[in-house]
């Protein structure tokens, strides 16, 4: 395995371990408010390495627990996006003709509205979305690129000899698509999904920061920034630590996506 692939994979494993072990790794409960003393935001100390937020909650514990929420939302919504996108793209490319033309026009329309605006409208107008709603929303607005790429790949593969041969031997359409075409597009899917996770982590953080994503008191990397009045300069720790978590997770997935792109060389199905 190439070294370029190794370090982002290792970092991803660390993130997954943190997400899984958050309750055991955290020094405090994520929403625990001190029972005695003054409730205030305090800078990093031995008791609270990342400091505390204005409600006196331990930022380190919140960041660790936030890992679970932020990664969970990103992973699940990308899973939805990849599934929907693959189905849509495969259908469009495989059947082709008029259906393809119609579906592609629909995709044009969907792609024409900046995703952030859609997320903004839905999450604001429907009020505080519960977590499953947020996952669904991110998933259902994130599949357009997948669909477009898959459609392109399927289109290119449709007339290849081995596919034609499989059909000539009387293999059913669904089986040909499933057994002979889809296995060739997995490099595309893996790379797009990895980069999609990176993008979704950042997007969810942004939405939560605006108060439109994960709702308080639930900790996600974005919501920690938001309900910690992060804009107040004296509380740099509330900005810095969740921010570093976001950037390093996004960077890990981007680096992994880049490395996978070079290793798997998707988009070369026609070669």
């Amino acid at each position, binding site marked *: 395995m190439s070294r370029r692939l190794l370090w982002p994979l290792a970092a991803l494993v660390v993130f997954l371990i943190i997400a899984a072990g958050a309750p055991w790794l955290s020094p405090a409960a994520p929403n625990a408010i001190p029972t005695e003393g003054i409730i205030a935001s305090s800078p990093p100390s031995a008791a609270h390495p990342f400091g505390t937020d204005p409600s006196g909650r331990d930022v380190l514990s919140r960041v660790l627990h936030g890992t679970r929420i932020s990664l969970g939302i990103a992973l699940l919504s990308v899973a939805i996006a990849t599934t929907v996108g693959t189905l849509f793209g495969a259908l469009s490319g495989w059947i082709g003709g008029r259906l393809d033309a119609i579906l592609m*026009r629909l995709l*044009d*329309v969907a*792609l*024409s*509205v*900046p*995703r*952030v*605006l*859609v997320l*903004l*409208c*839905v999450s*604001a*107008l*429907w*009020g505080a979305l519960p977590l499953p709603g947020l996952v669904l929303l991110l998933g259902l607005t994130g599949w357009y690129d997948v669909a477009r790429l898959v459609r392109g790949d399927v289109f290119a593969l449709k007339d290849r000899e081995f596919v034609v041969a499989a059909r000539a031997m009387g293999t059913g359409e669904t089986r040909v698509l499933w057994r002979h075409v889809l296995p060739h597009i997995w490099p595309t899917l893996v790379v797009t999904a990895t980069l999609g996770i*990176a993008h979704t982590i*950042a997007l969810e*953080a*942004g939405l939560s*920061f*605006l108060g439109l994503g994960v709702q308080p008191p639930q900790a996600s990397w974005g919501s920690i*920034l938001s309900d910690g009045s*992060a*804009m*107040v*300069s004296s509380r*740099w720790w509330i*900005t810095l630590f969740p*921010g570093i978590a*976001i*950037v390093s997770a*996004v*960077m890990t997935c*981007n*680096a992994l996506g*880049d490395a996978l792109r070079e290793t798997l060389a998707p988009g070369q199905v026609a070669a």
Partner: protein
Amino acid sequence: MLSRPKRAHSSRVVARLLQSLFVVWAAATAAFVLMRLAPGDPYTTRIDVPANERAQWSAQRGFDQPIPVQYVKWLRNLAVGDFGQSSYFKRPVLDVLRDVLPRTLLLMSLALTASVLLGMAIGAWQGTRVGTTGDSLLSTGSLLAYSVPEFWLGILLVQLFAQSLGWLPASGMVSTEYEYLPLSARIVDRLRHLVLPLTALTLLGTSLFARFQRSSMRDAWNEPFVQTARAKGLTERGVRWHAWRTALVPVVTMFGLMFPSLLGGAVFVESIFSWPGMGHTAVLAVNARDYNLAVAAVIVGSVMTVSGSLLADVLQRAVDPRTAA
């Protein structure tokens, strides 16, 4: 590849424009339906309004009519440029757009120009030096820049340069005393307000273009015609120009396709820096259930995206003779 039947140039342009118009109409319709399906109305957030008064207002604005009737009415108004009244700003949506849109366009065009120039310079430099230490450092740098969300970068910039160091203003387009300043000081004041939001927006764009230009330059650099250029006796600069000229094609296309993501970034950046543009206004509009303004924001976004992709087409045709008609 399938050969397309050759059509007259002008009819293809018309077809492309009609297609774009369809896309905008469909996006606007979808936005309209979405807003009308949403629970609540612009008065949901106004607990101070008595129920009978609220019903009266609703009737005045046609909210009590069936959705298809509302839609036809809305579309007819839209066709003549009437976006309706903004319930939040209490003035016509078109007037609001007239105010806020240029501010976003200013920010976006500056950010885009800076991103393209910087990104292309960095990427082109890297593309001919793939694998060197300088290339690796810049690649890591642009990967990092590419991975920093604009909103977080915005907060950091505010905390560092505005609040801790106090060098630059943190929010708005001008200072409160702007009106009383002489012209030269006004220009400086405006520029000072631009620096931070522009930086936040430019960093991502630059890294994106740099990544893109690097890979296209690297591909071009390995093409046989680069060897030909050398064999002709060109200087290294001339050889690099040959490679860059072909590496330009995908980057130029990217330029137009960047519009939606840049607008998305503007939503966050404008909110952080209270930049009174389209993005900031969109956030205010949805939070206040200002349907007309929110729909208008979606339409503006869609028009920008569509014109971006038209621009991408035009630019691509301009720099790549293989796609030109």
